[in-house]
Protein backbone atom coordinates (compact mmCIF):
# COMPACT_ATOMS: atom_id res chain seq x y z
CA UNK A 1 0.00 0.00 0.00
CA UNK A 2 1.24 3.45 -0.89
CA UNK A 3 2.15 5.72 2.00
CA UNK A 4 -0.99 7.45 3.22
CA UNK A 5 0.39 10.91 2.73
CA UNK A 6 -1.73 14.03 2.42
CA UNK A 7 -1.14 16.65 -0.20
CA UNK A 8 -3.66 19.47 -0.35
CA UNK A 9 -4.07 22.92 -1.77
CA UNK A 10 -7.25 24.27 -0.26
CA UNK A 11 -8.81 27.29 -1.92
CA UNK A 12 -12.32 28.63 -1.60
CA UNK A 13 -14.29 31.74 -0.73
CA UNK A 14 -17.11 31.52 1.78
CA UNK A 15 -18.73 34.69 2.98
CA UNK A 16 -15.95 36.94 4.23
CA UNK A 17 -13.40 34.14 4.38
CA UNK A 18 -10.93 33.49 1.59
CA UNK A 19 -9.19 30.24 2.36
CA UNK A 20 -5.92 29.61 0.56
CA UNK A 21 -3.74 27.09 2.37
CA UNK A 22 -1.29 24.49 1.13
CA UNK A 23 -0.94 21.46 3.34
CA UNK A 24 1.08 18.30 3.27
CA UNK A 25 1.66 15.64 5.88
CA UNK A 26 3.11 12.18 6.27
CA UNK A 27 1.53 9.16 7.99
CA UNK A 28 1.91 9.27 11.74
CA UNK A 29 2.23 13.03 11.81
CA UNK A 30 0.16 15.08 14.19
CA UNK A 31 -0.39 18.54 12.79
CA UNK A 32 -1.95 21.30 14.87
CA UNK A 33 -3.75 24.11 13.10
CA UNK A 34 -3.92 27.31 15.13
CA UNK A 35 -5.47 30.65 14.36
CA UNK A 36 -7.81 33.28 15.71
CA UNK A 37 -11.60 32.86 15.48
CA UNK A 38 -12.82 33.16 11.93
CA UNK A 39 -9.41 32.44 10.43
CA UNK A 40 -10.72 29.40 8.56
CA UNK A 41 -9.54 26.53 10.77
CA UNK A 42 -12.86 24.70 10.85
CA UNK A 43 -13.51 25.39 7.17
CA UNK A 44 -10.13 23.82 6.40
CA UNK A 45 -11.09 20.73 8.35
CA UNK A 46 -14.48 20.52 6.65
CA UNK A 47 -12.94 20.66 3.18
CA UNK A 48 -10.80 17.65 4.10
CA UNK A 49 -13.82 15.79 5.50
CA UNK A 50 -15.80 16.57 2.36
CA UNK A 51 -18.45 18.61 4.15
CA UNK A 52 -17.45 21.67 2.11
CA UNK A 53 -16.32 21.53 -1.51
CA UNK A 54 -13.22 23.29 -2.75
CA UNK A 55 -13.54 25.93 -5.45
CA UNK A 56 -9.91 25.64 -6.57
CA UNK A 57 -6.92 23.49 -5.73
CA UNK A 58 -7.09 19.84 -4.76
CA UNK A 59 -6.93 17.24 -2.02
CA UNK A 60 -4.94 14.06 -2.51
CA UNK A 61 -4.65 11.33 0.08
CA UNK A 62 -2.54 8.24 -0.47
CA UNK A 63 -2.31 9.08 -4.16
CA UNK A 64 -6.05 9.22 -4.75
CA UNK A 65 -7.83 12.47 -5.46
CA UNK A 66 -10.61 13.39 -3.04
CA UNK A 67 -11.44 16.77 -4.45
CA UNK A 68 -10.22 18.57 -7.55
CA UNK A 69 -12.73 21.06 -8.97
CA UNK A 70 -10.65 21.69 -12.09
CA UNK A 71 -11.12 18.08 -13.18
CA UNK A 72 -14.55 17.75 -11.62
CA UNK A 73 -13.30 15.06 -9.26
CA UNK A 74 -15.14 14.75 -5.97
CA UNK A 75 -15.53 12.12 -3.33
CA UNK A 76 -18.45 12.39 -0.94
CA UNK A 77 -17.66 12.28 2.81
CA UNK A 78 -18.73 8.65 2.99
CA UNK A 79 -16.33 7.71 0.18
CA UNK A 80 -13.38 9.29 2.00
CA UNK A 81 -11.51 7.83 4.89
CA UNK A 82 -11.74 10.45 7.60
CA UNK A 83 -12.63 10.44 11.27
CA UNK A 84 -14.12 13.59 12.71
CA UNK A 85 -14.23 14.63 16.36
CA UNK A 86 -15.82 17.93 17.35
CA UNK A 87 -15.86 19.93 20.56
CA UNK A 88 -19.26 18.44 21.43
CA UNK A 89 -18.99 14.69 21.34
CA UNK A 90 -22.16 14.36 19.19
CA UNK A 91 -22.57 10.72 20.13
CA UNK A 92 -25.79 9.18 18.88
CA UNK A 93 -28.00 9.34 21.98
CA UNK A 94 -30.13 6.33 20.99
CA UNK A 95 -27.20 3.95 20.60
CA UNK A 96 -25.09 2.32 23.30
CA UNK A 97 -21.44 3.28 23.55
CA UNK A 98 -20.28 0.15 21.70
CA UNK A 99 -22.83 0.67 18.90
CA UNK A 100 -21.79 4.30 18.59
CA UNK A 101 -18.22 3.19 18.04
CA UNK A 102 -19.32 0.39 15.72
CA UNK A 103 -21.50 2.73 13.63
CA UNK A 104 -18.78 3.54 11.12
CA UNK A 105 -17.88 -0.09 10.47
CA UNK A 106 -21.56 -1.03 10.16
CA UNK A 107 -22.01 1.80 7.65
CA UNK A 108 -19.19 0.31 5.61
CA UNK A 109 -20.86 -3.06 5.43
CA UNK A 110 -19.03 -4.85 8.25
CA UNK A 111 -21.09 -7.45 10.12
CA UNK A 112 -22.51 -6.51 13.48
CA UNK A 113 -20.32 -8.99 15.34
CA UNK A 114 -17.11 -7.77 13.70
CA UNK A 115 -18.04 -4.12 14.17
CA UNK A 116 -18.69 -4.72 17.86
CA UNK A 117 -15.44 -6.63 18.30
CA UNK A 118 -13.51 -3.76 16.74
CA UNK A 119 -15.43 -1.18 18.79
CA UNK A 120 -14.59 -3.11 21.94
CA UNK A 121 -10.87 -2.99 21.12
CA UNK A 122 -10.98 0.75 20.49
CA UNK A 123 -12.88 1.40 23.70
CA UNK A 124 -10.61 -0.80 25.77
CA UNK A 125 -7.58 1.03 24.38
CA UNK A 126 -9.06 4.22 25.78
CA UNK A 127 -9.88 2.71 29.17
CA UNK A 128 -13.62 2.47 28.52
CA UNK A 129 -13.91 -1.33 28.54
CA UNK A 130 -16.45 -1.18 31.37
CA UNK A 131 -18.78 1.35 29.72
CA UNK A 132 -19.64 -0.58 26.56
CA UNK A 133 -23.37 -0.96 27.05
CA UNK A 134 -24.34 2.34 28.62
CA UNK A 135 -26.04 5.19 26.78
CA UNK A 136 -24.02 8.33 26.03
CA UNK A 137 -26.04 10.43 28.51
CA UNK A 138 -24.66 8.31 31.35
CA UNK A 139 -21.05 9.21 30.48
CA UNK A 140 -19.00 12.01 31.95
CA UNK A 141 -17.88 14.69 29.49
CA UNK A 142 -14.34 13.30 29.34
CA UNK A 143 -15.58 9.75 28.76
CA UNK A 144 -17.97 10.93 26.04
CA UNK A 145 -15.14 12.70 24.25
CA UNK A 146 -12.99 9.57 24.39
CA UNK A 147 -15.89 7.53 22.97
CA UNK A 148 -16.15 10.09 20.16
CA UNK A 149 -12.44 9.58 19.50
CA UNK A 150 -12.88 5.80 19.50
CA UNK A 151 -15.78 6.13 17.04
CA UNK A 152 -13.63 8.20 14.69
CA UNK A 153 -10.68 5.79 14.93
CA UNK A 154 -12.73 2.60 14.53
CA UNK A 155 -13.06 3.23 10.79
CA UNK A 156 -9.27 3.23 10.29
CA UNK A 157 -9.27 6.73 8.83
CA UNK A 158 -6.42 8.02 6.71
CA UNK A 159 -7.10 11.45 8.19
CA UNK A 160 -8.18 11.97 11.77
CA UNK A 161 -9.73 15.42 12.02
CA UNK A 162 -10.07 16.90 15.50
CA UNK A 163 -11.89 20.21 15.81
CA UNK A 164 -11.19 21.74 19.23
CA UNK A 165 -11.65 18.29 20.79
CA UNK A 166 -10.89 19.44 24.33
CA UNK A 167 -12.40 22.91 24.39
CA UNK A 168 -15.75 21.90 25.87
CA UNK A 169 -14.19 20.06 28.83
CA UNK A 170 -13.58 21.50 32.28
CA UNK A 171 -9.89 22.10 33.13
CA UNK A 172 -9.29 18.96 35.19
CA UNK A 173 -11.00 16.66 32.71
CA UNK A 174 -9.23 18.44 29.89
CA UNK A 175 -5.78 17.67 31.29
CA UNK A 176 -6.56 13.97 31.72
CA UNK A 177 -8.27 13.69 28.33
CA UNK A 178 -5.37 15.51 26.68
CA UNK A 179 -2.98 12.95 28.15
CA UNK A 180 -5.16 10.02 26.95
CA UNK A 181 -5.48 11.63 23.55
CA UNK A 182 -1.71 12.03 23.33
CA UNK A 183 -1.09 8.36 24.08
CA UNK A 184 -3.70 7.17 21.59
CA UNK A 185 -2.59 9.57 18.83
CA UNK A 186 1.00 8.44 19.04
CA UNK A 187 -0.18 4.89 18.33
CA UNK A 188 -2.27 6.04 15.36
CA UNK A 189 -0.52 5.52 12.03
CA UNK A 190 -2.67 7.87 9.94
CA UNK A 191 -2.42 11.64 9.76
CA UNK A 192 -3.93 13.68 12.57
CA UNK A 193 -5.03 17.25 12.01
CA UNK A 194 -5.86 19.00 15.25
CA UNK A 195 -7.60 22.36 15.13
CA UNK A 196 -7.20 24.22 18.39
CA UNK A 197 -6.77 27.64 19.90
CA UNK A 198 -5.14 26.26 23.02
CA UNK A 199 -1.32 26.48 22.73
CA UNK A 200 -0.98 23.71 25.30
CA UNK A 201 -2.92 21.26 23.07
CA UNK A 202 -0.73 22.19 20.15
CA UNK A 203 2.60 22.09 21.96
CA UNK A 204 1.92 18.90 23.92
CA UNK A 205 0.23 16.87 21.19
CA UNK A 206 1.50 18.00 17.81
CA UNK A 207 4.79 17.49 16.05
CA UNK A 208 4.05 20.19 13.53
CA UNK A 209 2.27 23.53 13.93
CA UNK A 210 0.42 25.42 11.26
CA UNK A 211 -0.76 28.95 11.90
CA UNK A 212 -3.46 30.42 9.73
CA UNK A 213 -4.88 33.91 9.82
CA UNK A 214 -7.65 35.25 7.58
CA UNK A 215 -7.51 32.04 5.55
CA UNK A 216 -3.77 32.21 4.87
CA UNK A 217 -0.84 30.24 6.17
CA UNK A 218 1.38 32.55 8.23
CA UNK A 219 3.80 30.06 9.70
CA UNK A 220 4.53 26.37 9.69
CA UNK A 221 7.13 24.44 11.60
CA UNK A 222 7.96 22.19 14.52
CA UNK A 223 6.98 23.54 17.95
CA UNK A 224 10.68 24.24 18.63
CA UNK A 225 11.05 26.28 15.45
CA UNK A 226 7.91 28.26 16.10
CA UNK A 227 8.81 29.05 19.69
CA UNK A 228 12.31 30.15 18.65
CA UNK A 229 11.21 32.33 15.75
CA UNK A 230 7.57 33.34 15.59
CA UNK A 231 6.77 35.10 12.32
CA UNK A 232 3.96 37.36 13.48
CA UNK A 233 2.22 38.83 16.49
CA UNK A 234 -0.48 36.16 16.71
CA UNK A 235 2.03 33.30 16.65
CA UNK A 236 4.18 35.06 19.24
CA UNK A 237 1.13 35.64 21.40
CA UNK A 238 0.25 31.95 21.26
CA UNK A 239 3.73 30.92 22.37
CA UNK A 240 3.72 33.67 24.99
CA UNK A 241 6.40 36.02 23.62
CA UNK A 242 6.51 39.79 23.04
CA UNK A 243 6.88 40.37 19.35
CA UNK A 244 8.17 43.48 17.58
CA UNK A 245 8.86 44.28 13.97
CA UNK A 246 11.64 46.73 13.12
CA UNK A 247 14.41 47.89 10.82
CA UNK A 248 18.10 47.09 11.23
CA UNK A 249 20.06 50.18 12.25
CA UNK A 250 23.43 48.65 13.12
CA UNK A 251 24.96 45.38 14.24
CA UNK A 252 23.41 45.85 17.66
CA UNK A 253 20.45 48.15 17.14
CA UNK A 254 16.96 47.74 15.74
CA UNK A 255 14.60 50.64 15.12
CA UNK A 256 11.07 49.73 16.25
CA UNK A 257 8.72 52.52 15.19
CA UNK A 258 11.21 55.23 16.22
CA UNK A 259 12.46 53.56 19.40
CA UNK A 260 15.82 51.85 19.47
CA UNK A 261 16.02 48.30 20.81
CA UNK A 262 19.45 46.93 21.61
CA UNK A 263 20.39 43.30 21.14
CA UNK A 264 23.69 41.39 21.02
CA UNK A 265 23.46 40.70 17.33
CA UNK A 266 21.26 41.92 14.49
CA UNK A 267 21.16 39.72 11.42
CA UNK A 268 21.68 41.07 7.91
CA UNK A 269 18.72 42.31 5.90
CA UNK A 270 16.67 45.42 6.55
CA UNK A 271 13.52 43.94 8.10
CA UNK A 272 13.97 42.30 11.49
CA UNK A 273 11.73 40.45 13.93
CA UNK A 274 12.41 40.87 17.65
CA UNK A 275 11.12 38.74 20.50
CA UNK A 276 11.39 39.39 24.22
CA UNK A 277 10.31 36.86 26.84
CA UNK A 278 7.83 38.47 29.28
CA UNK A 279 9.94 37.18 32.18
CA UNK A 280 12.86 39.28 30.87
CA UNK A 281 10.93 42.53 31.30
CA UNK A 282 11.72 44.15 34.65
CA UNK A 283 9.63 46.97 36.12
CA UNK A 284 10.74 49.94 38.23
CA UNK A 285 8.95 52.91 39.78
CA UNK A 286 11.81 55.31 38.99
CA UNK A 287 14.17 55.27 36.06
CA UNK A 288 17.01 53.00 37.16
CA UNK A 289 20.55 54.61 37.23
CA UNK A 290 23.20 53.07 35.07
CA UNK A 291 20.30 51.25 33.60
CA UNK A 292 20.35 48.80 30.74
CA UNK A 293 20.09 50.53 27.40
CA UNK A 294 16.64 49.06 26.79
CA UNK A 295 14.70 51.28 29.17
CA UNK A 296 11.27 52.60 28.26
CA UNK A 297 8.52 54.54 30.04
CA UNK A 298 5.36 52.42 30.20
CA UNK A 299 1.81 52.60 31.54
CA UNK A 300 0.26 49.60 33.30
CA UNK A 301 -2.84 48.14 31.70
CA UNK A 302 -4.43 44.82 32.55
CA UNK A 303 -2.92 42.59 35.29
CA UNK A 304 -3.58 38.84 35.52
CA UNK A 305 -2.39 36.64 38.37
CA UNK A 306 -1.36 33.08 37.50
CA UNK A 307 -0.15 31.31 40.62
CA UNK A 308 2.97 33.08 41.86
CA UNK A 309 3.41 35.26 38.82
CA UNK A 310 1.53 38.16 37.29
CA UNK A 311 1.23 38.98 33.63
CA UNK A 312 1.17 42.74 33.22
CA UNK A 313 0.14 44.40 29.99
CA UNK A 314 2.11 47.56 29.34
CA UNK A 315 1.53 50.44 26.97
CA UNK A 316 4.65 52.35 25.93
CA UNK A 317 6.58 52.98 22.76
CA UNK A 318 5.21 49.55 21.78
CA UNK A 319 2.90 47.18 23.67
CA UNK A 320 4.70 44.75 25.97
CA UNK A 321 3.75 42.03 28.43
CA UNK A 322 5.86 41.64 31.55
CA UNK A 323 5.84 38.64 33.84
CA UNK A 324 6.73 39.57 37.40
CA UNK A 325 6.51 37.80 40.73
CA UNK A 326 3.60 38.26 43.04
CA UNK A 327 6.04 39.96 45.44
CA UNK A 328 6.85 42.56 42.79
CA UNK A 329 3.15 43.27 42.39
CA UNK A 330 2.95 44.06 46.08
CA UNK A 331 6.24 46.03 46.23
CA UNK A 332 5.33 48.18 43.25
CA UNK A 333 1.66 48.37 44.29
CA UNK A 334 0.83 47.67 40.70
CA UNK A 335 -2.42 49.11 39.39
CA UNK A 336 -3.91 50.01 36.07
CA UNK A 337 -2.86 53.43 34.77
CA UNK A 338 0.34 53.49 36.85
CA UNK A 339 3.43 54.89 35.12
CA UNK A 340 6.58 52.79 35.41
CA UNK A 341 9.89 52.10 33.73
CA UNK A 342 10.46 48.82 31.93
CA UNK A 343 13.95 47.51 31.25
CA UNK A 344 15.19 44.52 29.28
CA UNK A 345 18.80 43.36 29.16
CA UNK A 346 20.19 43.39 25.64
CA UNK A 347 21.09 39.71 25.99
CA UNK A 348 17.40 38.89 26.52
CA UNK A 349 16.40 40.45 23.22
CA UNK A 350 16.33 38.02 20.34
CA UNK A 351 16.47 39.35 16.77
CA UNK A 352 16.13 37.37 13.53
CA UNK A 353 15.40 38.12 9.89
CA UNK A 354 11.75 38.83 9.14
Amino acid at each position, binding site marked *: MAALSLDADLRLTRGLLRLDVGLSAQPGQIMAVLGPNGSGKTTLLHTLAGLIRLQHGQIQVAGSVWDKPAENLWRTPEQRRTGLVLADHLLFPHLSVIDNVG*FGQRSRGVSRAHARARARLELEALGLGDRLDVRPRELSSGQAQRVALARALATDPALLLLDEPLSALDPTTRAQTRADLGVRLRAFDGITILVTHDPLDALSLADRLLFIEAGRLVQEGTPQEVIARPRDAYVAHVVGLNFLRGQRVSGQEVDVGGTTVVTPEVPGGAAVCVTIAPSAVALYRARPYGSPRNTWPVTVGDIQLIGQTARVSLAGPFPLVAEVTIAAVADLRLGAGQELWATVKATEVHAYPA
Partner: protein
Amino acid sequence: MRSVRWARTGLFIPAWIGIAVLLVPMVALLLKADWAGMPDQLAKPSVVPALRLSLMTTSSTLVICALLGTPLAWLLARSTHRLTPWLRALVTVPLVLPPVVGGVALLMAYGREGVVGRTLLEVAGWSIPFTPVAVVFAETFVALPFYVLAVEGSMRGLDRRYDGLAATLGASPWRTFRTVVVPMVAPGIASGSALAWARALGEFGATITFAGNFPGRTQTAPLAVYVALESDPQAAIALSLVMLLVSIVILGLLRGRWLR
Protein backbone atom coordinates in the same frame (compact mmCIF):
# COMPACT_ATOMS: atom_id res chain seq x y z
CA MET B 1 -53.37 47.19 45.90
CA ARG B 2 -56.95 47.56 44.83
CA SER B 3 -55.98 47.94 41.19
CA VAL B 4 -53.92 44.73 41.46
CA ARG B 5 -56.88 42.81 42.86
CA TRP B 6 -59.13 44.20 40.16
CA ALA B 7 -56.63 43.29 37.49
CA ARG B 8 -56.41 39.78 38.86
CA THR B 9 -60.20 39.39 38.94
CA GLY B 10 -60.29 40.83 35.45
CA LEU B 11 -58.01 38.03 34.31
CA PHE B 12 -59.64 35.25 36.33
CA ILE B 13 -63.20 35.76 35.14
CA PRO B 14 -62.55 35.36 31.41
CA ALA B 15 -60.10 32.54 32.12
CA TRP B 16 -62.71 30.54 34.01
CA ILE B 17 -65.36 31.29 31.40
CA GLY B 18 -62.90 29.92 28.86
CA ILE B 19 -62.48 26.72 30.85
CA ALA B 20 -66.26 26.40 31.18
CA VAL B 21 -66.68 26.79 27.42
CA LEU B 22 -64.45 23.76 26.96
CA LEU B 23 -65.58 21.69 29.91
CA VAL B 24 -69.38 22.08 30.03
CA PRO B 25 -70.12 20.21 26.77
CA MET B 26 -67.87 17.31 27.70
CA VAL B 27 -69.40 17.00 31.16
CA ALA B 28 -72.88 17.23 29.62
CA LEU B 29 -72.02 14.33 27.36
CA LEU B 30 -71.09 12.25 30.41
CA LEU B 31 -74.23 13.27 32.32
CA LYS B 32 -76.61 12.48 29.47
CA ALA B 33 -75.17 9.03 28.82
CA ASP B 34 -77.21 5.94 29.63
CA TRP B 35 -74.36 4.11 31.33
CA ALA B 36 -76.28 0.93 32.08
CA GLY B 37 -77.40 0.57 28.48
CA MET B 38 -73.94 1.33 27.11
CA PRO B 39 -72.94 -2.24 26.13
CA ASP B 40 -76.19 -2.69 24.20
CA GLN B 41 -75.77 0.66 22.46
CA LEU B 42 -72.26 -0.19 21.36
CA ALA B 43 -73.33 -3.60 20.06
CA LYS B 44 -75.90 -2.08 17.68
CA PRO B 45 -75.50 -2.93 13.99
CA SER B 46 -75.14 0.79 13.14
CA VAL B 47 -72.35 1.30 15.67
CA VAL B 48 -70.01 -1.68 15.34
CA PRO B 49 -69.25 -1.33 11.59
CA ALA B 50 -68.66 2.40 11.99
CA LEU B 51 -66.14 1.87 14.76
CA ARG B 52 -64.44 -0.90 12.82
CA LEU B 53 -64.25 1.23 9.68
CA SER B 54 -62.83 4.17 11.63
CA LEU B 55 -60.20 1.92 13.18
CA MET B 56 -59.19 0.47 9.79
CA THR B 57 -59.09 3.76 7.90
CA THR B 58 -57.32 5.76 10.58
CA SER B 59 -54.66 3.04 10.96
CA SER B 60 -54.12 3.00 7.19
CA THR B 61 -53.94 6.79 7.20
CA LEU B 62 -51.32 6.71 9.92
CA VAL B 63 -49.17 4.22 8.00
CA ILE B 64 -49.42 6.33 4.84
CA CYS B 65 -48.57 9.51 6.79
CA ALA B 66 -45.48 7.84 8.27
CA LEU B 67 -44.30 6.41 4.93
CA LEU B 68 -44.80 9.59 2.92
CA GLY B 69 -44.65 12.24 5.61
CA THR B 70 -41.36 11.30 7.28
CA PRO B 71 -39.22 11.63 4.13
CA LEU B 72 -41.16 14.75 3.14
CA ALA B 73 -40.51 16.30 6.55
CA TRP B 74 -36.79 15.49 6.24
CA LEU B 75 -36.53 17.09 2.81
CA LEU B 76 -38.37 20.18 4.02
CA ALA B 77 -36.19 20.35 7.12
CA ARG B 78 -32.88 20.10 5.27
CA SER B 79 -33.50 21.58 1.84
CA THR B 80 -31.92 24.96 1.21
CA HIS B 81 -33.68 25.43 -2.10
CA ARG B 82 -35.28 28.84 -2.50
CA LEU B 83 -38.67 27.26 -3.19
CA THR B 84 -38.65 25.22 0.02
CA PRO B 85 -40.47 27.85 2.13
CA TRP B 86 -43.21 27.92 -0.53
CA LEU B 87 -43.46 24.15 -0.48
CA ARG B 88 -43.73 24.25 3.30
CA ALA B 89 -46.56 26.78 3.05
CA LEU B 90 -48.29 24.60 0.47
CA VAL B 91 -48.17 21.61 2.80
CA THR B 92 -49.88 23.72 5.45
CA VAL B 93 -52.87 24.69 3.30
CA PRO B 94 -55.04 21.63 4.09
CA LEU B 95 -54.52 22.51 7.74
CA VAL B 96 -56.56 25.70 7.42
CA LEU B 97 -58.74 24.66 4.49
CA PRO B 98 -62.39 23.90 5.44
CA PRO B 99 -62.56 20.09 5.24
CA VAL B 100 -65.60 20.18 2.96
CA VAL B 101 -63.54 22.18 0.46
CA GLY B 102 -60.92 19.46 0.74
CA GLY B 103 -63.61 16.93 -0.11
CA VAL B 104 -64.66 18.89 -3.19
CA ALA B 105 -61.00 19.18 -4.24
CA LEU B 106 -60.52 15.42 -3.84
CA LEU B 107 -63.61 14.82 -5.94
CA MET B 108 -62.23 17.09 -8.65
CA ALA B 109 -58.98 15.14 -8.61
CA TYR B 110 -60.04 11.52 -8.13
CA GLY B 111 -63.76 11.61 -8.94
CA ARG B 112 -65.08 9.70 -11.97
CA GLU B 113 -64.79 12.89 -14.01
CA GLY B 114 -61.75 14.11 -12.08
CA VAL B 115 -58.36 15.13 -13.41
CA VAL B 116 -56.71 11.90 -12.29
CA GLY B 117 -59.81 9.86 -11.57
CA ARG B 118 -61.03 9.71 -15.16
CA THR B 119 -57.73 8.23 -16.34
CA LEU B 120 -57.70 5.77 -13.45
CA LEU B 121 -61.15 4.62 -14.41
CA GLU B 122 -60.36 4.31 -18.12
CA VAL B 123 -56.96 2.67 -17.78
CA ALA B 124 -57.27 0.52 -14.66
CA GLY B 125 -60.99 0.44 -14.13
CA TRP B 126 -60.57 1.86 -10.62
CA SER B 127 -63.15 4.16 -9.16
CA ILE B 128 -62.10 5.71 -5.89
CA PRO B 129 -64.98 7.91 -4.69
CA PHE B 130 -67.54 6.45 -2.29
CA THR B 131 -65.28 3.54 -1.29
CA PRO B 132 -63.33 2.83 1.92
CA VAL B 133 -60.23 3.83 -0.05
CA ALA B 134 -61.79 7.27 -0.53
CA VAL B 135 -62.18 7.53 3.25
CA VAL B 136 -58.45 6.92 3.61
CA PHE B 137 -57.75 9.51 0.89
CA ALA B 138 -59.87 12.08 2.71
CA GLU B 139 -58.32 11.33 6.07
CA THR B 140 -54.79 11.39 4.68
CA PHE B 141 -55.45 14.71 2.96
CA VAL B 142 -56.38 16.38 6.24
CA ALA B 143 -54.01 14.49 8.58
CA LEU B 144 -50.75 14.51 6.61
CA PRO B 145 -50.04 18.22 7.19
CA PHE B 146 -50.30 17.73 10.97
CA TYR B 147 -47.83 14.87 10.79
CA VAL B 148 -45.38 16.65 8.48
CA LEU B 149 -45.36 19.88 10.49
CA ALA B 150 -44.77 18.11 13.81
CA VAL B 151 -42.02 15.86 12.45
CA GLU B 152 -40.38 18.60 10.42
CA GLY B 153 -40.27 20.79 13.52
CA SER B 154 -38.31 18.24 15.48
CA MET B 155 -36.10 17.40 12.48
CA ARG B 156 -35.16 21.05 12.10
CA GLY B 157 -34.21 21.04 15.76
CA LEU B 158 -31.78 18.18 15.11
CA ASP B 159 -28.18 19.40 15.09
CA ARG B 160 -27.05 19.50 11.46
CA ARG B 161 -23.57 18.42 12.46
CA TYR B 162 -24.96 14.90 13.03
CA ASP B 163 -25.61 14.65 9.28
CA GLY B 164 -22.01 15.47 8.40
CA LEU B 165 -20.60 13.35 11.16
CA ALA B 166 -22.58 10.28 10.08
CA ALA B 167 -21.36 10.88 6.51
CA THR B 168 -17.71 10.90 7.60
CA LEU B 169 -18.41 7.59 9.32
CA GLY B 170 -19.39 6.19 5.94
CA ALA B 171 -23.17 6.37 6.26
CA SER B 172 -25.10 7.07 3.07
CA PRO B 173 -27.87 9.69 3.26
CA TRP B 174 -30.42 6.86 3.37
CA ARG B 175 -28.63 5.10 6.22
CA THR B 176 -28.26 8.39 8.10
CA PHE B 177 -31.98 9.02 7.70
CA ARG B 178 -32.91 5.54 8.84
CA THR B 179 -30.46 4.95 11.68
CA VAL B 180 -29.75 8.44 12.98
CA VAL B 181 -32.48 10.90 12.05
CA VAL B 182 -35.59 8.78 12.57
CA PRO B 183 -34.57 7.39 15.98
CA MET B 184 -33.45 10.82 17.17
CA VAL B 185 -36.75 12.47 16.22
CA ALA B 186 -38.87 9.60 17.59
CA PRO B 187 -40.63 11.94 20.06
CA GLY B 188 -41.60 14.24 17.18
CA ILE B 189 -42.82 11.27 15.15
CA ALA B 190 -44.89 10.09 18.10
CA SER B 191 -46.55 13.44 18.66
CA GLY B 192 -47.04 13.92 14.91
CA SER B 193 -48.68 10.50 14.74
CA ALA B 194 -50.97 11.30 17.65
CA LEU B 195 -52.05 14.59 16.10
CA ALA B 196 -52.54 13.04 12.66
CA TRP B 197 -54.45 10.09 14.04
CA ALA B 198 -56.75 12.28 16.13
CA ARG B 199 -57.39 14.50 13.11
CA ALA B 200 -58.17 11.48 10.94
CA LEU B 201 -60.49 10.00 13.57
CA GLY B 202 -62.51 13.20 13.72
CA GLU B 203 -62.57 13.75 9.95
CA PHE B 204 -66.12 14.52 8.75
CA GLY B 205 -66.43 17.13 6.01
CA ALA B 206 -63.98 15.78 3.46
CA THR B 207 -65.14 12.22 4.09
CA ILE B 208 -68.84 12.84 3.60
CA THR B 209 -68.15 14.89 0.46
CA PHE B 210 -65.68 12.57 -1.20
CA ALA B 211 -66.57 9.16 0.24
CA GLY B 212 -70.23 9.56 1.02
CA ASN B 213 -72.09 8.08 3.97
CA PHE B 214 -72.77 4.40 3.22
CA PRO B 215 -73.15 2.34 6.42
CA GLY B 216 -70.53 -0.39 6.64
CA ARG B 217 -68.62 0.99 3.66
CA THR B 218 -67.78 4.66 4.13
CA GLN B 219 -69.71 5.59 7.25
CA THR B 220 -67.01 6.29 9.85
CA ALA B 221 -67.72 6.86 13.53
CA PRO B 222 -68.24 10.66 13.23
CA LEU B 223 -70.66 10.17 10.34
CA ALA B 224 -72.52 7.48 12.27
CA VAL B 225 -72.83 9.85 15.23
CA TYR B 226 -74.31 12.52 13.02
CA VAL B 227 -76.83 10.11 11.46
CA ALA B 228 -77.75 8.45 14.75
CA LEU B 229 -78.37 11.76 16.52
CA GLU B 230 -81.79 12.08 14.88
CA SER B 231 -82.94 8.49 14.99
CA ASP B 232 -81.16 7.09 18.04
CA PRO B 233 -79.58 9.73 20.33
CA GLN B 234 -78.34 7.19 22.90
CA ALA B 235 -76.33 5.37 20.22
CA ALA B 236 -74.85 8.71 19.16
CA ILE B 237 -73.87 9.49 22.75
CA ALA B 238 -72.32 6.05 23.20
CA LEU B 239 -70.25 6.43 20.05
CA SER B 240 -69.21 9.93 21.06
CA LEU B 241 -68.10 8.67 24.45
CA VAL B 242 -65.99 5.99 22.86
CA MET B 243 -64.24 8.59 20.72
CA LEU B 244 -63.82 10.95 23.69
CA LEU B 245 -62.33 8.13 25.76
CA VAL B 246 -59.95 7.01 23.01
CA SER B 247 -58.81 10.59 22.43
CA ILE B 248 -58.13 11.15 26.12
CA VAL B 249 -56.28 7.85 26.46
CA ILE B 250 -54.05 8.61 23.47
CA LEU B 251 -53.38 12.13 24.69
CA GLY B 252 -52.63 10.87 28.20
CA LEU B 253 -50.27 8.16 26.96
CA LEU B 254 -48.34 10.57 24.79
CA ARG B 255 -48.34 13.46 27.20
CA GLY B 256 -46.41 11.62 29.85
CA ARG B 257 -43.65 10.54 27.52
CA TRP B 258 -43.51 12.81 24.54
CA LEU B 259 -45.90 15.73 24.36
CA ARG B 260 -44.82 18.87 26.09
